[in-house]
């Protein structure tokens, strides 16, 4: 693993922390701002990803599309109230160039329904391309789900 500076490390961790807080604290409106515009956000099963199949569970190519997902969540779609608790581990940062890094990291999400039911809803890896700067932003985040199954539905981004 190539080495990156402490500072970069902190930037990346801060970015991921903001990402978690935006989603898990139900401040999803803050979430699109963590990406560049245009950007690439994709949720894909290992099954499709490993076979280079283009189909995604969710795919956004711009901040606008991220915002539309927030709109869907807040205003349009119908689902049982639920919240996520993200857990992260095993972050690797590899430099691409002076202002970009590639990150790999494990994630797991515990989903809690309004009834109180808890499940490990998703687990896998984040594959990121991050643009550094005053504050780091995701140019690309590919969320690979180890499981090919999604329970019931997926409305909150992972």
């Amino acid at each position, binding site marked *: 693993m190539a080495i990156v500076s402490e500072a970069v490390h902190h930037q990346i961790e801060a970015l991921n922390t903001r990402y978690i807080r935006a989603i898990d604290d139900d401040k999803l409106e803050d979430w699109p701002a963590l990406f560049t515009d245009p950007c690439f956000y994709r949720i894909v099963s290992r099954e499709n990803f490993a076979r280079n199949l283009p189909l995604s569970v969710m795919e956004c190519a*711009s*901040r606008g599309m991220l915002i539309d997902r927030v709109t869907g969540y807040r205003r349009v779609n119908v689902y049982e109230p639920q919240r996520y608790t993200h857990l992260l581990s095993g972050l690797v940062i590899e430099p691409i160039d002076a202002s970009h890094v590639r990150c790999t990291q494990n994630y797991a999400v515990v989903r809690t329904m309004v009834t109180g039911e808890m499940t490990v809803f998703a687990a896998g890896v984040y594959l990121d391309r991050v643009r550094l700067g005053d504050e780091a932003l995701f140019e690309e985040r590919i969320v690979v789900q180890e499981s090919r199954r999604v329970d*019931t539905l997926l409305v909150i981004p992972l």
Partner: protein
Amino acid sequence: MDGFLAIMRNDEPLLTWPKEGPTRAPYRVMHDPEIYRQEMDRIFRGPTWNYLCLDIEIPNPGDYKTSFIGEVPIIVCRDENGEIHGLINRCAHKGAMLCIDPVGNKKQFACVYHAWTYDLKGDLTSVAFQKGLAGKGGMPADFDATKHGLTKIRVENFCGLIFGTFSDQVENVEAYLGPDMTKQVRRVFCKRIEVLGYYHQVLPNNWKLYMENSRDPYHATILHAFYATFKLNRLSMQGGVALGKHGWHNLLYSVAERDIQRDNYEGGHLRSVIRDVGLADSTFLDRRQEFDDGVTVAIQSIYPTCNIQQIYNTLAIRHTVPLGLEKAELHWTCFGYKDDDEELRRMRNLQANLIGPAGYVSMEDGSVGGYVQRGIAGAEEDAAAIMEMGGRDIAPQPGIRATEVALRGFWQAYRELMGF
């Protein structure tokens, strides 16, 4: 229980259907373990054709894909001569599942347990240590390998879709579907297709609740607010319902560009038309009219558990597999055409945001099934769903979309098969 069942069978049915007939569906069929067991026998092992996979998923000799008919695990494979076979994924020796990986390529099927080996037709070709060792042990001299192959099921390749059945009575797929349904299958599978990927969605409900859902044009534009809000699909648009095999199968279709009565939505007070909502970037809705009939949304149901979907440029086959009484798995196979240009590929890809477990216009089908399953919990013996929208009979309704005729067809078929 089956012991008890065996007795019951000769006796009266487990259920007396409401006198109103197919306009009613007793909730008990959604949570009675006995009825569930009978369904495996009378529907899935009965005179029905069940979707298994696409022929292009197993292009080469030795290619296989696993699937299910009801709860029974199935292998679909292609032999050396390119012929396709359907086999129960269960070793003839002691029942071990042969293929664990959902897809693969094999010269033969060797069971990991005792290495009994079958050729690609399912015939038993070798029994490990059949002759024993040093003349000791092994199978009896009169052991007849030809009697111990894998259980073969009838399969048919119709327009590239592989269907399977346990029945030797049931007519061939084309006759099973009937002219109107085959027409639609041919429409979608008009040229060489290409798989774009898969979804697997666990539904918190009895399998039949999803089968109803996919036959129900009534809910589509109400539950799926995205449809109505962004004028992608509304009951007020031109369209209708076609039936096959006196209602076993059906096709729901609509034409977005022909909205004959917008006011019914704009005027109305449906939550599903959300006025002050807009899209920040609607490029994911960029679409192309690829069928000359102008139909923009077409959902076809083939009894019992297969759906063929065209929602704008998203094409998919959906296959529902029961996972016990109150759970099911929905397997989506999304595809495009080999000759798609880059723009169209990109359109299909971004439009996929509409479908699947996170689809803007489909995610609700995941939750609503659970709402029903929980809503009917502990229901009284005689509680039943009512389906009288669009009348009480079962006949094609070309111009009509505010109708539940396709659901009545589903229940009619169900009763025929279950003897209710």
